[in-house]
């Protein structure tokens, strides 16, 4: 065997890979990303397929065709507006859950499915994964989507497949009215839009006058808890900055969760018992009924429960930011909180 001889032979210099090549990897990776992003900007240039450019609820500027004939609606709240604007015939697809696992999204109540004739529509899977193929197959000119769809997916539909997507996710009741006006604009249904707006304004005016009366008389707003679900730990409700919160305010109620930290907090039994609201409004439907709430902590000890001021209300009327919430939900809530008021 050849012996490595230290004194005479010099070993072949072993190639050393400089430590700096970490940097190379990172730079190459970053370079590829930059090229990709630049390419996507370049692609986006040619997406103007309609004469109207609008700003949606996420602040995105979207160019949409005027009065598109084929529309896919992803989100029950938007479907409500579309229906009330008389645009049902434009809808070629709605959101659904994984077809093999249950089909139509559970966000739709049985009434809505029947009223809107949803079972006849094609559905586009939005959960748990968004199905681009199904969307493309429907050949829509416009997609109206709530944030049940990943924003990243929305951008991809817009950019890659040149299908404009308008995101409608109003945070307040005023936002609902604005979104309806926007839809009216896109579909050129100003009359339907303004009559819907009138109906909405009428209800809102009634609410405002009730509030003025109460304030003028110095009558305090009744305290209440609006809950849409409950479990052994407590009651799920609306926190500050949500459309649910603004609904309660419009109905001249004092929400006991107005100072909550989270947007959609779960109040513990203790917190509810300590506040002991005058009214307790609980959502029903979607598999939830009074017995769901009976299992929540201190349910039977609450004054509202004992005095018969715990009232059930269809969740549809206050959990979706849509016209129905104002047209139906608001008057119902006012009737509960202020029975016999002039608003009725």
């Amino acid at each position, binding site marked *: 065997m050849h012996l*490595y001889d230290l*004194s005479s032979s*010099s070993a072949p210099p072993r190639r050393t890979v400089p430590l700096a090549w970490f940097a190379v990897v990172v730079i190459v990776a970053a370079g590829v990303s930059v090229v990709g992003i630049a390419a996507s900007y370049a692609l986006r240039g040619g997406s103007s397929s309609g004469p109207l450019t609008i700003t949606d609820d996420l602040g995105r500027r979207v160019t949409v065709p005027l009065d598109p004939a084929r529309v896919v609606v992803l989100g029950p709240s938007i479907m409500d507006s579309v229906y009330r604007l008389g645009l049902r015939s434009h809808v070629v697809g709605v959101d659904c859950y994984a077809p093999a696992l249950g089909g139509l999204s559970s966000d739709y109540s049985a009434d809505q499915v029947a009223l809107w004739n949803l079972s006849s529509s094609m559905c586009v899977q939005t959960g748990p994964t968004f199905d681009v193929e199904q969307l493309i197959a429907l050949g829509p000119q416009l997609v109206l989507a709530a944030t049940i769809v990943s924003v990243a997916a929305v951008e991809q539909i817009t950019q890659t497949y040149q299908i404009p997507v308008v995101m409608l996710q109003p945070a307040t009741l005023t936002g609902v009215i604005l979104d309806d006006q926007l839809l009216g604009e896109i579909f050129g249904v100003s009359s339907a839009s303004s009559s819907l707006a009138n109906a909405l304004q009428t209800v809102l005016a009634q609410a405002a006058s009730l509030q003025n009366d109460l304030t003028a008389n110095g009558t305090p707003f009744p305290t209440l808890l609006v809950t849409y679900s409950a479990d052994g730990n407590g009651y799920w409700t609306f926190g500050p900055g949500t459309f649910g919160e603004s609904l309660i305010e419009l109905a001249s109620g004092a929400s006991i969760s107005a100072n909550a930290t989270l947007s959609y907090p779960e109040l513990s039994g203790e917190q509810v018992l300590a506040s002991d609201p005058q009214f307790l409004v609980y959502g029903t439907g979607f598999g939830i009924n009074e017995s769901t709430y009976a299992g929540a902590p201190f349910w039977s000890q609450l004054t509202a429960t004992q005095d018969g001021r715990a009232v059930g209300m269809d969740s549809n009327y206050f959990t979706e930011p849509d016209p129905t919430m104002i047209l139906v939900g608001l008057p119902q809530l006012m009737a509960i909180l202020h029975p016999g008021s002039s608003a009725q």
Partner: protein
Amino acid sequence: MSGPTDPALRLRQVTVRFGERMALQDVNLEVPKGQFLALTGPNGSGKTTLLRAALGFLAPQSGSVELFGSEVLSLSVAERARRVAWVPQEENPRENVPLLDYVLYGRYAHLEWLQGETARDREAALRALRAVGLEERAEDGILSVSGGEKQRAILARALVQEAPLVLLDEPTSHLDIAHQLDLLTRVRELSRERNVTVVAALHDLNLAARFSDRIVVLSRGRRVADGAPTEVLSEELLARVWGVVADLRRDPRTGAPYLLPHHLVPPAPSGPGTFLGKGPVHVVGGGGSGAPYLRALSEAGYRVTAGALHLLDSDLETAENLGALTAVEVPFAPISDEVRERLRNLLQAAKAIVVAPFPVGPSNLPNLEEVRGWLGRVPILLVRRPSGVEWDFAGGRARALEEELLRGGARQVAGAAEMLAALAAEPSVPLPQ
């Protein structure tokens, strides 16, 4: 790279600390090319640390470690691998790699980036397997061979590494006695054939003495002994460094010294007024005559040695119970030259000699003859014999010797108490170490 005069391994004032613990303390060591050096010492004495420092696995807090004249840490890892190979105590491969591939791992430092092993490398690996006797098993998986074969495969891997220095860390500790001999014999042969420098940490002093050119003993991180096996190994060293009482003998066939460990050095009695580690004092006795003096000395804090005694003598039992080093002869036989040599060693180490009133015959007469040789060099105390009891069975030669001793300066003492008093008065008996 390295000059012809550079040693294979050089440590200069190397100190390694692990937190508070000193693993190596100012160690200097030079290993010339071609030497087979055994590194030994008790557990925790710094053997492995020294090897790891030589491999560049750790950076000493101070001092320098050089391989063939170059500071080890200044060499690239691959360059280190081309200079020094390592056979660890135990390796736990995870994959059942064929032995041939396992050995080929040793070629890594000689291959270019992305370069595959060439036919030449495979040839070298096969030769290395042949050298360790594993040629037939080249295709067997490393997980399916025995511990001894695995260790040999690792040795083969070190060989194909073609490093001029091989470090072995307790390579035999997991092997049975046959495999221990086998492995070290191979290392020895290979080191001679290829002029490879070997540094082997070995627990087994007998293996160390038998195979190495030089033994370095570490204790608590310091180099405490260094030299040829015959110079370094002594009973005194064993007692001092390992705390073990052992007989040092010589293998009549190989001439290498070997050790027969007996038992631990018992802890010296402690308390006010006693001196730890005083002595040693050698007691010449026999037939139970030495026992009271051995005990008295031991109780007073002296280390004792005894002999030459015959096996089965009750004095021998007493001495061993006290942890004494002894020179021992088979029963009824005259004291052989070998035992006499050993007695001489013991007497040499002794700071004083006590001659118990033992019956003297031709077989144990050499005891007195040897004691005579130390007249004037160490204090010799003769215990007075009871009158009227015959004790010289050597035809007057014993009496003559005792008289000679007394004339030469030996003191006569009446009993154990007087013996201790006499020793205490001796200025030449050193105070505790």
